């Protein structure tokens, strides 16, 4: 849910099955954000999607963040709470970016412990989203899909698969997105994001989320959606927000690809 589309959601007129919000935008004391969220909640189920938990941080989770997040979850009673497989900072520094983890046993232990702590505190399982990335590390010992699968096994968490992020990272790092998607435990996937990207320097794709879903991402989605039946699908746009009608048109395209039982939102 983005600000230019608030009126449609407040009136309950947007033809979607659920609404996803950035959790941190509503982890505030009061005022219009929470007022609007409460009104939207009267019309739609809400999924809470966070960007600041930093589940991969070596110095653990921020307790005050968790308390705020839980307070919002109690208020909203969301479909689920999700965040990203990433870290945002260490030693008090916060980059406000979704920084990549090395895929090592130590990082797996760290992320698993942090996710377990968050789930215990929130009293609900989380969904973890695969990030797009522009780096890999010399110490990497496993693939991202193996890392995510192990996290699900260790913590009982679920997955939010961003198909665009898989395509972007696959292009940047030279892996096959279909191999990635085939290895993901299908029964752990609760939600899918569809988005666009931009072309950066040196042949890198950049996860700008400011473009319509491009053909290669649609093609990937069309090939794998049957594997992930009964998942919620969302068109994600973070910048250059178009009219709601444009997103609804993309959502209709997703509906055409997906099974009739899939839930779709924008």
């Amino acid at each position: 849910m983005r600000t230019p589309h608030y009126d449609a959601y407040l009136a309950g007129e947007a033809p979607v099955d659920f609404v996803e919000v950035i959790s941190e935008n509503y982890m505030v004391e009061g005022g219009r954000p929470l007022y609007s969220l409460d009104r939207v909640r009267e019309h739609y189920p809400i999924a809470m999607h966070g960007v600041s938990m930093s589940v991969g941080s070596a110095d653990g989770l921020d307790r005050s963040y968790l308390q705020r997040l839980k307070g919002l979850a109690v208020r909203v009673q969301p479909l689920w709470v999700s965040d990203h497989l990433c870290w945002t900072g260490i030693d008090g520094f916060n980059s406000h970016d979704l920084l990549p983890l090395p895929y090592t046993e130590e990082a797996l232990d760290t992320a698993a412990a942090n996710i377990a702590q968050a789930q215990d505190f929130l009293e609900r399982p989380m969904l973890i989203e695969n990030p797009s990335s522009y780096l890999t590390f010399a110490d990497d010992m496993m693939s991202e899909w193996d890392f995510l699968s192990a996290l699900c096994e260790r913590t009982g968490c679920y997955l939010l698969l961003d198909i665009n992020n898989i395509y972007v990272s696959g292009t940047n790092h030279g892996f096959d997105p279909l191999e990635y998607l085939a290895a993901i435990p299908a029964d752990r996937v609760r939600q899918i994001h569809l988005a666009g990207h931009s072309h950066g320097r040196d042949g890198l794709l950049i996860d700008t989320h400011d473009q319509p879903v491009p053909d290669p991402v649609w093609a990937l989605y069309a090939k794998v959606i049957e594997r992930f039946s009964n998942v919620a699908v969302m068109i994600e746009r973070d910048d250059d927000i178009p009219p709601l009608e444009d997103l609804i048109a993309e959502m209709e395209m997703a509906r055409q690809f997906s099974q009739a039982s899939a839930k779709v939102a924008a």
Partner: protein
Amino acid sequence: MMLAELQRELSAYIRSDGANLLDGVAERSKRGLPVYHYAYRASLINALRDVFERTHSWLGDDLFDDAARVHIDRNPPNSWTMSDYGLGFEAVLSDLYPENPEVAELAWLDWNLRVAFNGSDSPALDRAKLAEADWDNAQLHITPTLAMRPVSTNVGALWGALEDEEAEPPKAHLLGTPEILTVWRQDLAPRFQCVSELEGKALALAITGVSFGRICSELGSDADDEADFAAFAGAMLGRWISDDVLIDVGSSLP
């Protein structure tokens, strides 16, 4: 490399000038490091442009972004929420523009309007209490979103004029008499108003729990004309009521 060490090194790289690459990054993907280096500053500058919208309009892209980069270098973000990141930007602007106090004053106004936008909710004033209040002893409960500071320039007029991006804003000038700039939220809408120093003192006393009767006696003792001061105090209280600055009247603070 241990995870904490790698995260410290990547954090340091992001904050640095980007000249020294990281050892722990796979050789074939070092081309990706500048993406994170760039994104860190770009997202913070965008966040500052969003919160300090009118300050940005006043300075223009280049000067605003230069100031934002100084803020980023001096004050790396340390909160889980980007919403906190504007804290301290006013001080940076004050340092950078000592001869142009309107810049920091605009930034203070932009920042506090955003703080009020997300600030604590408070119950609406029960107007039935007004008729029953013992005004000599009544404590005035002021909205928790109220912020105020002295200003020396026509910052209020500048901020209002900058709403229209096409129009030429008025020139900044020093005020003949210093004023107090107040910001608060009325229902869901942040508001601001410049008030006299006398009204600013009254608000400051009310916030600390001084009764309305004592506020009047303290501030009225210097007044030349008792009737004029009574009229001023009555009008001031009327504005606080109509503007939802006053949220309760009682014998104790909430």
